[in-house]
C-alpha cells in the first residue's frame, strides 16, 4: 500500500535482498568461467545437457511447495521407484523409447504407493515436514536396498544374469542402460553451431511446465494453494487438508520418478545403490539457487537454478585446478556450495518467517510511540 513511491535505490536494495542467492551465483560463475578456461561453446553445450537432464526432476519439487509442505526431500522415493522400473526393463530386455515408457509405467504404482506413505507420515509430522521427508528418504533407501540387493535374484526372479551379482542374487553396483541411453535426447536431433540441443527432452519438460501452469488453475491446484497458505482456514472452508497434502506429495513423487528416468537415460548408467541419494540434494540446491524459497517457487526459478547451479558445478573442478593446482579442491568446493546454499536458504526462510510474525507488532509499537 505504502510502497508506491519508493526510490530507485530502495528498489535496487529490495531486489538484491530478495535475490541474494542467484546474484551470488552469478558472481561465482563470472569469476569461475575465465578461471576454468572452458570455451563458451563447451559451456553452452554443457548447460543444455544439464538442463535436459535435471529440469524435470526439479520441476517435480514445485507442487509440494505450492501445498506448503516445503522442499520435498522425499523425492528420492520417486527416484528409487524409477530405478526399480529401469532394472525391470533391463531384465526384460526392452529398449529405446518403448523401454522408457514401460519403465515409467512400472514406476508409477510404486511411486504412488511410496508417495502415499510419505504423505501420511508428513501429515503426522506437521511443522517439521522437511526433516521428516529427509529421513523418510533414508528409511526407504534401506527398504530399497533390501529389495534390490537381497530379494532380486532370490525371491524376485531376474533372468538377465548380466544384472545379477556373481553370488547369485542382488543387482550389480552399476547397471548399464545402453538400451535407453540418450534415446530421448537423440530422438529429434538438432545441432546449431556445434551445440547439441535435445529437442525431444526439452519438449517433454515443456509439457510438464504447461501441465503445472494449467494445474494451478484447477480446483485441486487452488485447494493446494489455499492449504499451503493457511491450513486452518482451508480446513474451515471444507477443503480436505490432509488428503490434499497427500495428493501433492504423490504427484511430486510420480513426477520425480519420470524425471529420474529422463536423468538416467542421459547419464546412461545406473549406479544401483547411490544414483538416487544425491538427486534430491542437487535438485533442491539447484531450485534454491534459482531464487526459490521454502515457501515460494516457480518455473523461472527452476531454469535459472539449473543454469547457474550446474554452471558452477561444471567449472569448479577446473577453476580449482587452475587456481591452486588441485582439481579435488574444486570438487569439494562445489559440494560445499551445494550444501551451503541449502543451509543459507533454510536459515533465511526461518528468519524471514519470524520477522513477518513480529512485523505487525513492530508497526503497532511504532505507531504508539508516534502517538506520544
Amino acid at each position, binding site marked *: 500500500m505504502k510502497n508506491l513511491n519508493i526510490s530507485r535505490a530502495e528498489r535496487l536494495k529490495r531486489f538484491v535482498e530478495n535475490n541474494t542467492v542467484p546474484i551470488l551465483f552469478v558472481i561465482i560463475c563470472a569469476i569461475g568461467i575465465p578461471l576454468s578456461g572452458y570455451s563458451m561453446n563447451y559451456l553452452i553445450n554443457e548447460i543444455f545437457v544439464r538442463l535436459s537432464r535435471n529440469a524435470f526432476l526439479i520441476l517435480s519439487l514445485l507442487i509440494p511447495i505450492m501445498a506448503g509442505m516445503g522442499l520435498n526431500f522425499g523425492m528420492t522415493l520417486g527416484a528409487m521407484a524409477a530405478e526399480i522400473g529401469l532394472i525391470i*526393463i533391463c531384465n*526384460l*530386455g*526392452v*529398449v*529405446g*523409447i*518403448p*523401454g522408457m*515408457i*514401460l519403465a515409467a*509405467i*512400472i514406476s508409477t504404482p510404486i511411486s504412488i504407493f511410496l508417495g502415499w506413505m510419505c504423505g501420511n507420515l508428513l501429515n503426522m509430522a506437521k511443522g517439521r515436514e522437511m526433516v521428516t521427508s529427509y529421513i523418510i528418504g533414508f528409511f526407504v*533407501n534401506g527398504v530399497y*536396498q533390501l529389495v534390490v*540387493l537381497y530379494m532380486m535374484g532370490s525371491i524376485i526372479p531376474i533372468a*538377465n*544374469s*548380466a544384472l545379477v*551379482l*556373481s553370488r547369485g542374487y*542382488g543387482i*550389480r*553396483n*552399476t547397471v548399464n542402460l545402453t*538400451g535407453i541411453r540418450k534415446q530421448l535426447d537423440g530422438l529429434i536431433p538438432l545441432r546449431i553451431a556445434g551445440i547439441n540441443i535435445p529437442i525431444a527432452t526439452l519438449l517433454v519438460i515443456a509439457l510438464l511446465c504447461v501441465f503445472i501452469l494449467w494445474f494451478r488453475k484447477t480446483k485441486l491446484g487452488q485447494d493446494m494453494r489455499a492449504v499451503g497458505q493457511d491450513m486452518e482456514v482451508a480446513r474451515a472452508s471444507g477443503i480436505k487438508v490432509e488428503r490434499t497434502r497427500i495428493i501433492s506429495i504423490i504427484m511430486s513423487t510420480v513426477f520425480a520418478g519420470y524425471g529420474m528416468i529422463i536423468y538416467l537415460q542421459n547419464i546412461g548408467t545406473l*549406479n544401483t*545403490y*547411490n*544414483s538416487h*541419494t*544425491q538427486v534430491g540434494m542437487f535438485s533442491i540446491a539447484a531450485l534454491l539457487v534459482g531464487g526459490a524459497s521454502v515457501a515460494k517457487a516457480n518455473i523461472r526459478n527452476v531454469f535459472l537454478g539449473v543454469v547457474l547451479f550446474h554452471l558452477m558445478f561444471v567449472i569448479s573442478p577446473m577453476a580449482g585446478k587452475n587456481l591452486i593446482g588441485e582439481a579435488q579442491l574444486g*570438487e569439494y568446493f562445489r*559440494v560445499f556450495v551445494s550444501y551451503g546454499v541449502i543451509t543459507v536458504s533454510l536459515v533465511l526462510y526461518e528468519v524471514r518467517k519470524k520477522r513477518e510474525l513480529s512485523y505487525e507488532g513492530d508497526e503497532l509499537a511504532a505507531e504508539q510511540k508516534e502517538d506520544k
Partner: protein
Amino acid sequence: MNRRLIVRIVTCVAVILLAFSMYFIGRQHTILVDNRTVEGVAPALKSIEVSIDKQDSLELYPRDRDQFVVTGQSHKLHVKYTDSNWNEIDKVIKFKVPAKNDMYIISLPKLAMNLDAPQSEWLEVFKSMAVQADQSAEEPIVTDDLSAMM
C-alpha cells in the same frame, strides 16, 4: 458417475495395453546369423550377404557367424547369394521371433536349402553361455551414499 467409471476402466486398460505393447515393440533380440555347415543336412554357402530389416548388410563366408540386434518381433531377412547352380538369389524373407527369448540363431545353409520352408526349419532359440564371463571384473558393492558425489 457411470461415465466416470468407464473412463477410468478404459484408461487403466489402455495403460496396461500400452505397457504390453511397449514390451513387445521395445523388446530387444539378438539374432545370430550363422553360415556353418550343418553336418549331413546342408553345406555352408561360399559367400552370402545378409541383412535384417534396414541394417547394414554383412557378408558371411563359411564358418562365419555374426549378429544383428533388433527390436520387436516381426523382421525381414534379406539374403543375397549365389547358389550352387550359379543362380543369383536375392530374396526377402519375413520371420517372427517370440518375445520371451533374448537370442535366436538363423542357420543360413538350412535356409538356403529351401527358401520357402517354414521358419521353424532354420530359426531356433539360442542359449547363451558366455554372458557370465566378466565375473572377475566385479566391483565391490558400495551402499555408502557419498561415493556418487566425489
